[in-house]
C-alpha cells in the first residue's frame, strides 16, 4: 500500500524520536567525558562542553588500575567467548542434528540456567573459589562467564544450525566425502555466520558483567572495567571523579557500539532466532 505524505512524515517523526531516545544518554556520557573536570559540577548539564579537553582520558590511562582492568576485560571476555562458543557449537550441533535421548533434559537445563539469578551463585562461588584458589584470578571469572553464556550460545546456534539444509550433508556423503570432510568443506562454511554472531553476543554478555566481577575479584589482578568503574566512586572522597568515570565508560562502550553498528543485522538475527520459534 502506498503511504501518504502525512503518514510518511508521521513515521519519520516517530523514527527520529526513537533514535533520539536511544542516543541521548550515550551522547551525554560522551560530552561529560570531554568536559574540564572542574567545570562539570557547575555547568548545568549542557550537552556540549564549553571547553573541550582530553584531560579525563589522559587521567584514566595514566591510572594503572584502569589499564589493568581494560586488559583483564579484554582477555577474560575473549577467552570466555572462545570456550563458550566451542562448547555451545558442539552441543547445538547435536541438538539440531542428532537423535539422542536426554536432549529435552539438556534444553530444559539450558533454559533454567538462562533464567538463573546470578546472585544466587555469588555466595557459593565466592566460597568455592576461595577454597580452590581461583578467587581473584582470570579463570575465576572465565568459569562463570562461560557457563552463563552457554545457554544463550546453545539457543542461538541451534537455531542457526536448523536453518542449514541438511540435504547438503547427505549430498556431500554421496559425493564421496567422509564425515570430517563433509563437516569441514560443506557444513562449517555455512555455519560460520551463525558462529560469528553467537560469538559477538557472548562477548557482549561477558564484557557487560558487573556482579561477578565485583564479587569474585579483589584487586587489579583480575578486576574488569565495569567493576573498576564501581570502585572509582568510592575511592576519591573530596572530588567525585565524574569526568574520569564518564571517560572510562566511553572507552568501554565505544568498541561495543562500533561492534553493534557494524554487525547490526547479524545481532538482530541472533537475538531473535532462538525466541521466535518457541
Amino acid at each position, binding site marked *: 500500500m502506498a503511504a501518504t505524505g502525512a503518514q510518511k512524515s508521521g513515521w519519520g517523526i516517530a523514527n527520529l524520536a526513537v533514535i533520539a531516545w536511544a542516543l541521548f544518554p550515550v551522547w551525554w556520557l560522551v560530552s561529560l567525558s570531554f568536559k574540564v573536570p572542574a567545570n562539570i559540577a557547575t555547568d548545568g548539564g549542557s550537552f556540549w562542553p564549553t571547553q573541550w579537553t582530553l584531560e579525563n582520558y589522559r587521567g584514566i590511562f595514566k591510572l594503572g588500575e584502569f589499564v589493568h582492568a581494560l586488559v583483564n576485560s579484554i582477555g577474560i571476555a575473549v577467552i570466555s567467548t572462545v570456550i563458550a562458543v566451542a562448547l555451545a557449537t558442539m552441543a547445538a550441533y547435536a541438538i539440531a542434528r542428532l537423535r539422542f535421548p536426554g536432549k529435552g533434559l539438556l534444553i530444559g537445563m539450558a533454559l533454567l540456567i538462562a533464567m538463573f539469578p546470578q546472585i544466587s551463585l555469588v555466595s557459593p562461588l565466592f566460597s568455592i573459589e576461595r577454597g580452590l584458589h581461583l578467587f581473584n584470578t582470570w579463570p575465576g571469572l572465565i568459569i562463570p562467564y562461560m557457563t552463563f553464556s552457554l545457554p544463550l550460545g546453545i539457543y542461538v546456534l541451534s537455531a542457526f544450525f536448523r536453518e542449514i539444509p541438511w*540435504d547438503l550433508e*547427505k549430498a556431500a*556423503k*554421496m*559425493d564421496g566425502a567422509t564425515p570430517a*570432510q563433509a563437516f569441514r568443506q*560443506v557444513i562449517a562454511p555455512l555455519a560460520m555466520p551463525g558462529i560469528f554472531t553467537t560469538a559477538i553476543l557472548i562477548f557482549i554478555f561477558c564484557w557487560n558483567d558487573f556482579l561477578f566481577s565485583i564479587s569474585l575479584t579483589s584487586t587489579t589482578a583480575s578486576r574488569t572495567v565495569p567493576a573498576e568503574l564501581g570502585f572509582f566512586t568510592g575511592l576519591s572522597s573530596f572530588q567525585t571523579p565524574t569526568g574520569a568515570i564518564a571517560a572510562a565508560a566511553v572507552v568501554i562502550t565505544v568498541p561495543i557500539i562500533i561492534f553493534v553498528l557494524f554487525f547490526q543485522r547479524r545481532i538482530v538475527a541472533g537475538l531473535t532466532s532462538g525466541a521466535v520459534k518457541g
Partner: protein
Amino acid sequence: MAEIVLDGVTKRYPDGALAVQAVDLTIADGEFIILVGPSGCGKSTTLNMIAGLEDITDGELRIGGDVVNNKAPKDRDIAMVFQSYALYPHMTVRENMGFPLKLAKVDKATIRQKVEEAAEVLELTAHLDRKPSNLSGGQRQRVAMGRAIVRSPKAFLMDEPLSNLDAKLRVQMRTQVSRLQRRLGTTTVYVTHDQTEAMTLGDRVVVMRGGIVQQVGTPKELYDTPRNLFVAGFIGSPSMNFLPATVENDALICALGSIPLDDNHRRALQARSGEGPVIVGLRPEHFEDAALIDSSHPGVTFDGTVEVLESMGSDVFAYFTLEGERATTAELEELARDSGSVDAAAVDQLVTRLDPNTGAREGESLSVWFDPANVQIFDPQNGDNLTAASAQVSTGQHAADTTGRTED
C-alpha cells in the same frame, strides 16, 4: 555400472515403526527403474537405504555383486540427485560439479575436463562460474544432474528430482532425464509420487504402499493388469472408476446396469475364495459416447445425466453422479487421501473420457457405451484384482503377501 539387488530389505525405526518391509527387487544393469507411491509409502526410505544414507535393518543389498549393507555412501560409488538439489551455496557451479572428483583426489586438469564435458551435455557451459543462487530452477536441477554424472558412478539415485520445477519445465526435463539416462546407460533408481512421471520414464515401475511393494512391472503391465485396487487406482489419470457390484444370473449388477460376464470374468469369479459382492473397475478412457459407436460393436450402454463437462481439446471428460453406494476399502480411502491422484469428492462420481466429437451437453442425458471386456473385477476383502490373477499375467518379480495384512 552395475546390477542392484535388494534381497528382503527392511527398514524398521527404533520406535518400532516399519517403514519398508522385505523388499525384493533386482534392478538390471542399465535399467531405469521407478519407485512410485503416495507420500509415506517407503519409496524414499528405500532409495536412502540403497544410497547408504539410512541403515538397512534387515535383508541384503548388493551392488554389482558386492554386499554393501555396511558400506558408507562414499564407498558405494553411486551418485544421487536430491529433490532440493542440495547444491553447495558457497561453491560455483564448476566447484559444485567438480566436488565429487576433488574428494576422489582426481587431478585438476581431469576435473576441469570432465566438468566441462558434463556442462556441455547439460548446456551449462555459460554458467560454470556462477553461484547456485544466481541460477533458475531448471539450471539448478541440471547442475545437480551434472554433479551426479561427472564421476561416472555405478548407479544414479534420484529422489523426486523434478518436483520443484513448474509443470512445463518438468515435462521438458523429463525427456532430458530420459535421454541422458539412455545415452549414459547407467542403472538408475528414480523416486517419484507422480504416476505420469513413473509411466513415461521407467523401464519398470515399482508401486509401493505402506512400506510394501504392491507390484513391479512395465508401465503397460501396471496399466493393463494392475494386481490390486491400489495399483489400479494409482496408475492412470484420471483414475479408474470403482463401483460396487453383485453377481447375479451370469452378470454383474452395478450402478451402470447389468454387465454380462465373459469367460475371463467367469474364471475370475470362480477362482475367488468367497461369495458376495465385488468391486468392478473401469478406466475413464474405456467409455465412449454411444452415438459415435458403430452399433455392430458389442457392448453395454447406459444412460445418465452429464453433470460436468470438461473439454481438453483432444478429449472431453464427462462426469456423472452414480446412484447407490460407493465402493469403499482401505486402499480406496488411502488413494482418496493422497490428493495428488484422486479427488476424495469424486469417488462416487463416474468419470468418462469421450471423443471430442461427442454431442454431450452439461445437464442433458447421454447414452454411454463401454466394452465389458475392459471391466476388471476386484475382491473387496483384500483388494486383489481377480481378473488379472485369472488371466495369469505375471507382472511382478515378487508376489509379496500384500494387501491382506495391512488391513487388519
